[in-house]
């Protein structure tokens, strides 16, 4: 064991002298993860706001209704500032604000009496999008008023008659009744004006599995997290495997075979150094995961220890691939050709859970998909950590078989 560690130390030293490569291996999945996060989970940022200057010369119900609708928390698009006509004209003239809307005197009366009225909208020419939004919103509001007139004409005529809007001689009782009617109407209008954007027609299906086995439902990014980690390790495995070519071309591999221990310590030392490098990456990822997704201690340890074991087996697999190729170029090409489909199908670019059924089936059969499945089952679906013992054993045995195969092939690899 000490002998293997000596050999591993040599490769760790060499890796430490070229940290950029190490950072690239980790950087690729992190970059992809960041892009996917932005694409699927939103990237935050500040929504644009229409700064609307409002001149309410009507000083009545429609002006209030407009302010209510445009400033509603579900609209979140308008920032309304009530100004005088002169002030509004002066400000929009110097480009202060997105648009200026003038509600003329007598607007409410005209609406309730089904008479024509003219609104004035001045837009800021120095802005392109926001004034358009103001225009569209105003047209929508006009439509709303129009359809309200048609839908509630009887009640609105009643309001007009009862309230004698033009004279302004309402009693306190009339005002209260009027307010109640308006509130009722506004409540109705609100539902029409703010329909749910997307409504899920949810039907509760009969549970197909036992309650105990039912998934907890991890978030999209939680589902992606182990995939990114495995992606980083797969990139590392593919990159580290090409070191066999450097050893071969530099003559160190042939020299090593002439030593008493032969090539066994060299290959196992490379696997061991790969394990330590992957352990460092996994540990860092697990700690990030623990703080971001509030993973428990057991799951954090699982993320730190199980993936490197899988990564070493992948490394042995890539070593085997390299010793069967005729040149480093061919080895790199073949490695990439193998790696990307495996990552795609195996749940590193997209969670297996969201893949089409046939692809998900293939993905679960890929080595990385198989490992990912076991990892997720314990991390997110309440499977016992003990269920990982068998996969870990399978991985260790597989790594042993692959190592033996590599050693058998090495003399031909050196002579090729």
């Amino acid at each position, binding site marked *: 064991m000490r002998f293997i560690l000596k050999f591993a130390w*040599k490769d760790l030293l060499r890796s430490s002298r070229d940290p950029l490569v190490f950072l690239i291996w980790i950087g690729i999945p992190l970059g992809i993860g960041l892009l996917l996060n932005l694409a699927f989970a939103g990237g935050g940022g500040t929504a644009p706001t229409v700064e609307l200057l409002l001149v309410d010369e009507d000083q009545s119900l429609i002006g209030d209704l407009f302010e209510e609708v445009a400033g509603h928390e579900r609209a979140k698009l308008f920032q309304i500032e009530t100004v005088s006509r002169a002030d509004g004209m002066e400000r929009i003239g110097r480009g202060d604000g997105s648009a200026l809307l003038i509600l003329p005197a007598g607007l409410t009366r005209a609406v309730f009496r089904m008479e024509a009225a003219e609104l004035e909208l001045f837009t800021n020419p120095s802005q392109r999008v926001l004034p358009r939004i103001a225009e569209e919103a105003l047209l929508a509001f006009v439509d709303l008023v129009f359809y309200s007139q048609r839908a509630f004409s009887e009640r609105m005529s009643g309001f007009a008659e009862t309230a004698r809007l033009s004279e302004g001689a309402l009693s306190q009782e009339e005002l209260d009744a009027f307010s109640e009617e308006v509130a009722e109407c506004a409540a109705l209008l609100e539902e029409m004006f703010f329909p749910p954007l997307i409504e899920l027609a949810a039907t509760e299906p009969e549970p197909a599995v036992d309650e105990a086995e039912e998934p907890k439902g991890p978030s999209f990014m939680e589902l992606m997290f182990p995939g990114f980690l495995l992606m980083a390790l797969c990139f590392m495995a593919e990159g580290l495997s090409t070191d066999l070519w450097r050893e071969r071309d530099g003559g160190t591999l042939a*020299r090593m075979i002439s030593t*008493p221990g032969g090539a066994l310590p060299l290959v196992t030392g490379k696997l061991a150094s790969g394990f330590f490098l992957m352990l460092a990456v996994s540990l860092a990822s697990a700690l990030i995961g623990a703080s971001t997704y509030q993973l428990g201690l057991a799951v954090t340890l699982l993320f730190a220890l199980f993936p490197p074991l899988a990564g070493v087996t992948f490394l042995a697999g890539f070593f085997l691939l390299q010793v069967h190729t005729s040149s480093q170029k061919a080895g790199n090409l073949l490695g990439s050709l193998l790696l990307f489909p495996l990552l795609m199908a195996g749940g590193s670019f997209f969670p297996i859970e969201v893949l089409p059924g046939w692809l998900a089936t293939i993905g679960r059969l890929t080595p990385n998909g198989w490992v990912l499945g076991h990892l997720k089952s314990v991390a997110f679906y309440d499977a016992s950590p003990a269920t990982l013992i068998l996969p870990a054993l399978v991985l260790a045995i597989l790594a042993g078989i692959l190592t033996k195969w590599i050693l058998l092939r090495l003399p031909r690899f050196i002579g090729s």
Partner: protein
Amino acid sequence: MIEVEELGKAYGDRVAVDGVSFTAKAGEVFGLLGPNGAGKSTTIGCISGLLKPGGGRIRVNDHDTVSDGRAAREKLGVVPQEIALYDELNAVENLRFWGGAWGLSGARLEERTKQVLERVGLTDRAKTRVEAMSGGMKRRLNFACGILHEPRVLLLDEPTAGVDPQSRLRILELVREEASRGACVLYTTHYMEEAEGLCDRLLIVDHGRVIASGTLSELHAEMGERDLLRLTGSFESEAVTSALGELEFIEVVQREAGVLVVALANGAQNLPAIFGALAEAGAEVGEATLTRPNLETLFIKLTGGALRE
């Protein structure tokens, strides 16, 4: 010592080594020569354990390289033609690694590391990474890694290829020192003057077969090689022609414009007779040069002048 008996090795239909046999003894530098593709590298590969012999037997210090491979390799030191070092590591780190691979550890490893660094003249470069070293330094370090564990048998595959004269001189001195301490040194090179000056015995192989072996003198004798005597002066007279004709042990190779070249066996012994005959014939000798045929001419004669690659 190295004992190779009827070694055979083929790659598919191509026979690389066909019945090569030789014995290299402790304390001697044994030269293995041959053109490219002759079978030298395959022979060395079989001795070092890199290749499995297709036939025959190899013993390194009485250990069979196939049935007792580990014990055989423990006695070996290898200095390959490539600079088989790790560029990212410095001189000491490389030495520690290769020393460890040959079973050295602890104080012994540190002591030997220090010693060989001094011997190859790299003590002040101990912490320099290989990638920052010159070609000569790399070659010397490559050599140092092969002798670190004081091997009983040392395989040197063109250890001076492409190095500066000073580094070459140092490496050749080290080879002699290794043989002096009792190591059996198997040396391959394409520099014939190097082999001529260094090797106690030589084996010349071609097309996988042994075509000549022995000391340099034995090879000359075996090939009937003669010395060349080159004289300058006046040799135009009939008397000189007649005198030269009477010397049966010489062959006139060139006779023109004041230059006379004759080939003869045992040149040094026959010089008085030649000078005597020329003096009697009235010839005036200005300058005389006796040249023994070198290994290169012998090698070309044995292996032919045709390009091999």
